[in-house]
């Protein structure tokens, strides 16, 4: 099975004095249809690795390959395009745009992509919300929703353009166990049923237990993969 995304000797060092190495020589393969958990002590570089995988940050050494293609040479606009079409991010805090309703938040990536006409866009966004049990929340702004609902809206937005890779940074970090279980279930579904690759940075043992692949990090490097 070929990897959807792989890294080779991936390193990220901050040009501070003295230099701080956040990610050290990481070789990793991310497979479609699988749920990967990245675990390790706080400050070991999990988030930093995730930003590199999501092409939000550029490595100082090594490469990230997406579908076998080198991404280092892509321009900022080309990386933005890949994020728009292929990646979906979910963060610990919901990170919805506060002025927009749930529906509008989910519509933003769809409208930016601009592949559908107006009513088809709204249909897709509604379907997205519906699939996550949020049909009743469509018209609400984030401040009128519960934490769990907001996080699910954020997931709906991440899935809006049908991405092949979903990246989560402690998506359950702020949720109670019931809502966490719901999110874990969603992540399993989008990996196993929808064939997407899911990479989820987490401290939560239940998330780690639910994952197909556990990537243990220590001090910026990969300790072991199970």
């Amino acid at each position, binding site marked *: 099975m070929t990897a959807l995304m792989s890294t080779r000797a991936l390193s990220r060092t901050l040009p501070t004095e003295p230099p701080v190495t956040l990610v050290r020589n990481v070789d990793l393969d991310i497979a479609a249809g699988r749920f990967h958990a990245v675990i390790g002590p706080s400050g070991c570089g999990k988030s930093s690795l995730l930003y590199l995988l999501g092409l939000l940050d550029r490595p100082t050494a090594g490469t990230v390959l997406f579908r076998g293609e080198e991404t280092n040479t892509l321009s900022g606009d080309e990386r933005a395009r890949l994020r728009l079409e292929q990646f979906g991010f979910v963060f610990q805090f919901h990170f919805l745009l506060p002025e927009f309703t749930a529906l509008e938040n989910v519509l933003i990536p769809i409208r*930016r992509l601009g592949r559908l006409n107006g009513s088809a866009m709204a249909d897709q966004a509604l379907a997205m919300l519906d699939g996550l049990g949020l049909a009743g929340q469509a018209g609400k702004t984030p401040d009128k929703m519960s934490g769990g609902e907001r996080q699910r809206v954020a997931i709906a937005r991440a899935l809006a353009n049908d991405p092949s890779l979903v990246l989560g940074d402690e998506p359950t970090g702020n949720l109670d166990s019931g809502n966490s279980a719901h999110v874990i279930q969603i992540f399993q579904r989008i990996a196993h049923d929808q064939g997407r690759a899911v990479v989820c940075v987490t401290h939560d043992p239940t998330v780690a237990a639910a994952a197909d692949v556990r990537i243990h990090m220590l001090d910026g490097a990969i300790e072991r993969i199970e």
Partner: protein
Amino acid sequence: MLARVRLILGIAVKHLAKRKRQTAVAIAGVGIGVGFFLAVSAMMIGSQNDFVQRLISSAPHIIISDEIRSPRPQPAIRALRGTTVEIQGYKTRNEVRGIKDWQEIVQAAEAIPGSIVAPSLSGAVTLRVGGREEPLGIIGVDPSIEEKIENVQDNMSAGTFHDLETTQGGVIITEDLAQRLGVRMGDTVGATSAAGTRSLKIVGLFARGRGQFGNNGYVLLREAQSLTGHPFIINRIGVSIPDPYAAQTVAANLEDRFGYKAQSWQERSADFMTLLLTRNVIMYSVISAMLLVASFGIYTAVSNSVVDKRRDIAILRSIGFSQSDLQRVFVAEGIILAIIGVVAGWAIGTLLMQILGSIRFPILGRVEHLPLDRSARQFMIAGLSSLCAAAIAAWLPARKAARVDPVEILRGAA
């Protein structure tokens, strides 16, 4: 593409709607700037047009006089050009006053299509009434021709220009002069010149405040010729042409051909034209300052918006917006503010013009209104320059939005 523009505008509008006070301040800045721009320029351009219109209509566009700018070389110099000789007891020859061959010049000027040519004679006399004396520059004219090149009648407060033709020895002088001499309409005054004394009858008066008439008075051409003892002589030819702005070129042509000084209205009003230029420089400086101040409001609003929305910028970048998308969002905010401000400014400007236009100024018995220029051109200039200034004012902070590093924000928030 269109969907993207609408999305970017939608985000910009949401940002602005959230920050109502800053938005209102920025819009008010542009609105007041544009409004006063329109009011000031309406007054400045309106009064300028009014002045120029008066200049053009109150006197002939070109006046050819019997003066010569560079005197003809004296006969001896002409005869002995290029040699060095010593001449003793040489007598300089005086040029004869009056325009020689004036009929030829009149013909040449009349050859210009649509032109009107009026020959006249001006000279100096002294008016005497019961021991009081006042100098008077008399201009001898043919009223039926002169009235076509010079707006005399409108400046008269009593009598008509044509009364000169019907009254033997008629003269029109200013009200001021009449008052100084203690005479009224219909009175007779004595006029003395080198050629003798005659009596003139006052048949018309120029209204006060018409400075251009000064100490001048109008008589019939014949009368002036006999008063000054210069029968058949002409020393001034007034020419009006269909395009007043061509006066300078036409005047230069006539002067080249005939040698006599031909002055266009622009040349005669050179001081005034310089004054207009100064006024325009002042006006545009004030206007630029207003636009600059309005731009500060937009700069501040957009700058603060960028700082406030750093988190949103990071979110949008992670979703897949490019750096230039983010820059466009914030430039759009500035332009939206400017568009609303310009429309408000147009309304304020129209209102101010309405108020200015309704003010009545009683000047020396006449009620005058401010001359205002309400042309669409000023509205366009005000609108476009505000938009450009706003685009620049918004673009500067918008570049910062594009440079926000999403990773830095995400790390900070996590």
